[in-house]
């Protein structure tokens, strides 16, 4: 067992290194970048959801003073390498590959589909130019819902697919589904839907692409969750060698899964930059963000549940349909994760799962914070529905069904072991934090006065990064790399492919490295956002706490060993007698011997020790996740529903969460609260709306409503004592959990509030008007 370094920073809410610049307006986001000769792009976009493009006349736009160039979709195909959508090319998927062009050429497939790019001296002029482009469209019947898309008579979006099936139907079974259903006391049937909603980061997508003709070199200033993935996408589409492309990123105004790879518009801007030999900036406005950047979660589920009379959830048989929008990409990979996660932390014995993905004339399905979240919604919703029917209370049915923590661990019927899962403890903790009997009394008194309070809970786990699997590293992206170097100024530099966009990595990773290596926090610098300099990585999937925290810990340990080894030559002392504390290498018990680590680095760089001594104070570390692990917990909400107006107030929201060891509690709590806020938003406020012609009706912030400071209550968070699985790395992620479990928590609470009216809820979006419909018994 290796001795763990004294922890001065890890576990403390150290103030963020990011904040001095953030708080003073000195952050540097993509739209803040100005390069000499820079031009601005805007896109001509289809007003129609489904149409053939008959002709595109850009002559008036090209003639407008201040407009430098206009490229149509066809023209861009000639100066780029044809191929599929960038993310689809990178992640693959089981479905067929739809024909794809960078901008629309002969056909538009959603309202907002880009048809041409206008490049001008200012964004104002570019938009003026867009208004002058004349496009002749031939209307086609729009496909705006999944049931029409499934109908073979619906006009196919993609000629080469021949129909609107993006992910062909498939079925899997885990466990003995037939027997489980045959033996069950009760069979329940539910139809549950999740509505379309979306990421809405405060900063939209965008980039500044800068092509240097002299060197045939492309630099892209991006807002992205991975500079390396963006670079691959750019190089691929432009047909450039990887070493001729550099992607850099500074501060990023949120993403939640949206900014991965490179969007069609960013790639078009890069192509334009190369053609014009000038930097081109494209930053989407809010209208583009809401209508074209991508949307998520529009999924429906037919669920059969096999249940015992005592409330054991024995088996599920689920049919899922996912609406992947017009240019299928990540959406086709979501069903398999939903299937894998559906059992949750429960003792489910059998799961039948089938899925189909459809294309429709709406914006494309993109990753949104816990893309598979519907599994928790469906499961936690039906547990409540079943409990009501059987006369059990929601806590009781969950405690009954949760898998006990055993050694060896229980295994989900879909294959993953539930190592270290503390769901039972989280349920019990919620029962301590929230006095249910007292609430029920208060609820009854309130009802007598015509006030409707409700309580709801939901339990979840997330693979953050997930348990160690036999034969492979944990986490969806495998091994995490990091380069660590002791610089001559005494700074311990960490080069990571992580690309923080709110996750505070520049603080948290420094905390770990400072502790492990032995320097003050201020003496660690986390370097991100430059493909020339950082190893491959991606921020996403709630994995960085374990994977990057772990590689920082082990890497710092390796670097320290190297430094001590070198120092032993420098100081003519045995490694065993040396220590690094507070930035000084010294002989234990002899303070006068201490030398600053910077001085050690300078001596190493001087070459005075010859080839037999390793003076290269740098390591390339890799970490496979160690034992990994699950995060998870139980959330509980108390709401009040105004039955005259349908408005819902959240009186109290409590979280009992296990995310392993915390690197920085304030950062962890911030992530949880932000996710919960998005979940509350999804239920009460947020819906991406399309009319039957495929026009997006939620195109501004007046119609797509995100929660404000008056909508989100104080969220009480308790961290549970965790099961340590690994000798060193027990940090687990929380990035997505709040958004995954808050929607069922809220819907369960609202249904409880409305139970005097006999309301049963099979959907996730409950705006005031819908609440009144449910009370009135309308479908």
């Amino acid at each position, binding site marked *: 067992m290796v001795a763990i370094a004294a922890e001065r920073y890890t576990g403390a809410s150290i103030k963020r290194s990011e904040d001095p610049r953030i708080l003073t307006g000195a952050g540097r986001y993509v739209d803040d970048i100005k390069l000499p000769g820079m031009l601005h792009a805007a896109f001509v976009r289809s007003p129609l959801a489904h149409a053939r493009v008959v002709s595109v006349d850009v002559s008036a736009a090209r003639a407008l003073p201040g407009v430098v160039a206009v490229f149509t979709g066809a023209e861009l195909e000639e100066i780029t390498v044809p191929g599929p959508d960038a993310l689809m090319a990178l992640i693959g998927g089981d479905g067929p590959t739809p024909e794809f062009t960078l901008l629309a050429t002969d056909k538009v497939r959603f309202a907002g589909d880009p048809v041409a790019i206008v490049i001008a001296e200012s*964004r*104002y002029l570019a*938009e*003026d130019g867009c*208004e002058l482009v004349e496009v002749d469209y031939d209307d086609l019947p729009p496909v705006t819902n999944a049931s029409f898309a499934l109908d073979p008579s619906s006009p196919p979006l993609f000629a080469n697919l021949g129909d609107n099936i993006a992910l062909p139907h498939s079925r899997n079974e885990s466990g003995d589904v037939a027997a489980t259903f045959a033996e069950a006391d009760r069979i329940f049937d539910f139809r549950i839907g999740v509505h379309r909603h979306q990421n809405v980061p405060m900063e939209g997508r965008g980039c500044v692409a800068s092509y240097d003709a002299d060197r045939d070199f492309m630099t892209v200033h991006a807002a992205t969750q991975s500079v390396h993935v963006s670079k691959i996408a750019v190089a691929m589409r432009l047909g450039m060698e990887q070493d001729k492309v550099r992607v850099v990123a500074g501060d990023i105004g949120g993403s939640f899964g949206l900014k991965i790879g490179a969007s069609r518009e960013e790639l078009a801007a890069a192509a334009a930059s190369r053609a014009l030999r000038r930097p081109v900036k494209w930053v989407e*406005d*809010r*209208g583009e963000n809401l209508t074209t950047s991508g949307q998520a979660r529009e999924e429906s589920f037919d669920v059969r549940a096999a249940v015992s009379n005592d409330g054991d959830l024995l088996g599920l048989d689920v049919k899922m349909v996912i609406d992947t929008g017009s240019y299928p990409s990540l959406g086709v990979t979501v069903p398999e994760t939903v299937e894998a996660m559906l059992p949750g932390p429960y003792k489910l014995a059998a799961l039948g799962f089938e899925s189909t993905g459809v294309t429709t004339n709406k914006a494309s399905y993109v990753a949104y914070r816990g893309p598979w979240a519907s599994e928790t919604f469906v499961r936690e919703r039906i547990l409540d529905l079943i409990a009501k029917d059987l006369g059990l209370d929601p806590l009781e049915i969950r405690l009954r069904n949760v898998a006990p923590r055993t050694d060896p661990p229980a295994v989900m019927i879909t294959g993953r072991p539930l190592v270290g899962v503390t769901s039972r403890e989280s349920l019990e903790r919620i029962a301590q934090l929230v006095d249910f009997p007292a609430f029920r009394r208060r609820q009854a008194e309130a009802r007598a006065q015509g006030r409707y309070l409700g309580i709801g809970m939901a339990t979840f786990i997330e693979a953050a990064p997930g348990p160690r699997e036999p034969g492979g590293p944990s986490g969806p992206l495998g091994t995490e790399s990091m380069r660590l170097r002791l610089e001559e100024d005494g700074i311990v530099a960490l080069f990571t492919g992580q690309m923080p966009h709110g996750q505070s990595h520049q603080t948290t990773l420094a905390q770990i490295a400072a502790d492990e290596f032995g320097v003050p926090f201020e003496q660690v610098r986390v370097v991100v956002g430059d493909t020339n300099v950082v190893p491959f990585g991606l921020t996403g999937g709630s994995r960085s706490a374990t994977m990057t925290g772990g590689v920082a810990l082990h890497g710092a340990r390796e670097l320290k060993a190297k430094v001590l080894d070198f120092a032993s030559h420098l100081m003519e002392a045995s490694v065993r007698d040396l220590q690094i504390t507070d930035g000084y290498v010294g002989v234990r018990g002899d303070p006068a011997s201490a030398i600053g680590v910077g001085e050690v680095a300078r001596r190493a760089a001087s070459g005075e020790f010859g080839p037999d001594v390793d003076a290269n104070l740098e390591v390339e570390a890799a970490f496979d996740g160690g034992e990994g692990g699950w995060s998870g917990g139980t959330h509980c909400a108390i709401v009040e529903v105004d039955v*005259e*107006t*349908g*408005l819902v107030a959240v009186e109290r929201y409590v979280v009992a969460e296990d995310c392993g060891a915390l690197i920085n509690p304030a950062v962890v709590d911030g992530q949880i609260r932000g996710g919960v806020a998005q979940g509350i938003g999804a239920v009460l*406020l947020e*819906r991406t*709306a399309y009319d039957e012609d495929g026009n997006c*009706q*939620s195109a*501004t912030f*007046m*119609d797509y*409503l995100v*929660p*404000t400071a*008056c*909508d989100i209550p104080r969220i009480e968070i308790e961290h549970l004592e965790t099961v340590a699985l690994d000798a060193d790395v027990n940090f687990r992620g929380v990035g997505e959990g709040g958004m995954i479990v808050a929607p069922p928590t809220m819907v369960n609470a609202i249904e409880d509030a409305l139970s005097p009216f006999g309301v049963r809820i099979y959907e996730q979006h409950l*705006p*005031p*008007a819908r609440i*009144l*419909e449910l009370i009135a018994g309308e479908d």
Partner: protein
Amino acid sequence: MKLPLVDYEAPRTVPEAVELLAEHEDEASVLAGGQSLIPLLALRLAHPAVLIDINGIAELSGVSATNGTVTIGAMTREYVAEESGTVADAVPLLAAALPLIGHEAIRSRGTIGGSLAHADPAAELPAVARALDAEFVVRGPAGERVVPAAEWFEGYLTTSRGPDELLVEVRFPAAGRGTGSSFQEVARRHGDFAIVGLATSLTLSEGTISDARLAFAGMSDVPVRATGAEDLLVGERPSAGLFDEAARLATGDIDPPADLHGSADYRRKVAAALVRRGLRAAADNAGERQ
């Protein structure tokens, strides 16, 4: 989301502004607070040829009270009206509605006249003006004209202001003794436009309702008075039963719009609830103005 090309004029006096309006008529948009107009321009939903910025016309700002009338200049900022003691004392219904308009930063620039000339039927001030029978003073090339609120609001975002006329001031009757006011609103979030709003004013005299005003926001393409309910209330003593009946009458044959935020049926139900709540609140604070 950048504004389209537009010419710009910044007159210093009302006659200058009127002259510009007479010259450009429907090709001109008057720029007051900009809180409604600039978003329309940014979304390129409006393409006026010229903006006539009246922020520099000093005489258009101010709140004054004479002989039972409170006169508010069209360019009076919403926050100024909100902080005005005269408005608080003499036009309590207006004072009740003002804090519900958007957020403080909107009210820093938004103006009383601008909001009323824009005439969004879901906004608070049109319902207040309609409830109180405010008078709209416009000035055109032919001189000054006074338009009662009942004739001011013609349709969705449409008023009877001629294209060559400028709204210069709005006159509100001062609330008498025994008058209670309430502005009720259901909005999706704090500061949002009303899905349904209700301006209520009740005057009690020896315990009996002598005057009743109910004007809805968000129930039609203009603010609309619930005259049937008003007639029912006059002469009666406040009671829960009376208010229920008024709510039924007020929403009985109204045909509200349906949109993303609420169906027609939803609006009707909410309107009824707001009538009950508004009348209760107005009756309660009528007592305070004896």
